[in-house]
């Protein structure tokens, strides 16, 4: 379980997050949704420690992550896998090299065992045949899948995904969503996903948090979302005509 308590964050005097508190449940797919600029990515980066919150606490399984020293935090980060918006794959390595990278740096496995683990991860994301390719040779969807393989190579307890299907066609986006969901269930990972894609919310979301202007505006399950009375949430959810039709059919 991951808990955020009263997180505040400002950049150059502009308040981006205002008192966000939330609990992200273990073994579930937790979604943070909201419009562009609502503070989703900043919150995600505060949770993983890439941004230091101005005030507030982040707890991972009863450990106050925000109170740890840089060294202690480094140890903790090995339990975290993250899928960045652009993939953030290393240009200096092949697909296989990228997946092997965390294993080379942190595991005590032999070279052969590292390769076997990397192949298993690539197999899982259906990318084994592309293992020798350079990152520049991959399509957007393949890059996301390679990034997922890298994120799970050390068998993390927590998986963070920043807009995992942004820039992907609808079919590939569904595949990526399904893959994240399956990996979460298979490994009992606590997964937190930032998205503004309502399709993802309805497909894979267990718990949903809606951010609006840097504040937590609404919290519930995907089943509650269509019946919610919150005006801003409804504006966000029913922004496209397809969703409006779906509501009309209910």
């Amino acid at each position, binding site marked *: 379980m991951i808990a955020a308590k009263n997180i505040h964050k400002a950049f150059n005097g502009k308040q981006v997050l205002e008192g966000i508190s939330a609990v992200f449940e273990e073994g579930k797919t937790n979604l943070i949704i909201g419009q562009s600029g609502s503070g989703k990515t900043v919150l995600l*980066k505060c949770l*993983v*420690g*890439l941004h230091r919150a101005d005030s507030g606490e982040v707890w991972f399984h009863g450990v106050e992550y925000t109170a740890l020293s840089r060294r202690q*935090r*480094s*140890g*903790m*980060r*090995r339990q*975290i896998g*993250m899928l*960045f*918006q*652009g993939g*953030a*794959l*290393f*240009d200096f390595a092949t697909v296989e090299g990228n997946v092997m*990278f*965390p294993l*080379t*740096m*942190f595991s005590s496995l032999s070279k052969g065992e590292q390769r076997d683990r990397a192949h298993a991860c690539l197999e899982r994301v259906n990318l084994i045949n592309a293992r020798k390719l350079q990152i520049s040779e991959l399509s957007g969807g393949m890059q996301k899948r390679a990034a997922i393989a890298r994120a799970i190579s050390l068998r993390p307890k927590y998986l963070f995904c920043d807009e995992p299907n942004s820039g992907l066609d609808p079919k590939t986006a569904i595949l990526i969503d399904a893959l994240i969901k399956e990996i979460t269930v298979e490994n009992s990972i606590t997964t937190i996903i930032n998205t503004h894609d309502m399709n993802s919310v309805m497909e894979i979301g267990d718990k949903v948090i809606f951010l609006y202007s840097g504040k937590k505006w609404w919290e519930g399950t995907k089943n509650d979302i269509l019946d919610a009375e919150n005006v801003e949430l409804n504006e966000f959810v029913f922004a496209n005509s397809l969703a409006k039709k779906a509501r009309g059919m209910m």
Partner: protein
Amino acid sequence: MLPTSLYRLNFFTDIGRYLLLMRRVFSKPQRWRIFYAQALDEMMGLGISSLAMVAIVSIFVGAVIAIQTSLNLMSAPSYMVGLATRDSLILEFCSTMIALILAGKVGSNIASQIGSMRITEQIDALELMGINSACYLILPKMLAMVILAPFITIFSIALGIFGGLIGLALTDYLTVEQYIEGIQRDFTPYYVTYSIVKSMVFALIFVSVSSFWGYSVRHSTLEVGRNSTRAVVTSCICILIFNLLLTELLL
């Protein structure tokens, strides 16, 4: 336009940020085996790939220095041309000028490489894995260039002197024998030590300064280009300042 006081504040802020970054750079690498492998790669990528340019510049500048010296020292003893060419190359050209050239070539390469990694979140990915990205990315480059700097300097001195010989052989200002006699006269080995020490300090400066500017990229690809230019300009100014300080201290 920023007021002057803000520019001054930025200057001191940048120095502070540079020192903080260096504190992170000079820490124990995560895995020594990987660190040595990276340093070897960087030697190939940054140093060895620069040798062709160093060779061309050294030969031509050596030839020009020899010809200009022979024109300026018409009435001096003939051995003076070789002696002056050799000492100019050892004392100044092969350490300072080559460092300035490398600051342009290698420095902009480092700044743009690290800057691109910053905006594509590759540095965030390293940090998130629990890796000290500053140490992982910058320390091997520093080690590689500091180790290679003496070899590049000696290589440049040898080719510069050879270039002088070619320059004089192609003209009739001085005979090759007179030039060779000159380069063997009154040789002070300490000058070579001085040149090597300078080149190592300069390598440390341009790698660290360029890495700092690359690391400082925050928002956009435009900033990568801007910071690459800043890296070269700042490195060159620092090299010139340290050249004066080291000359005062070591000679």
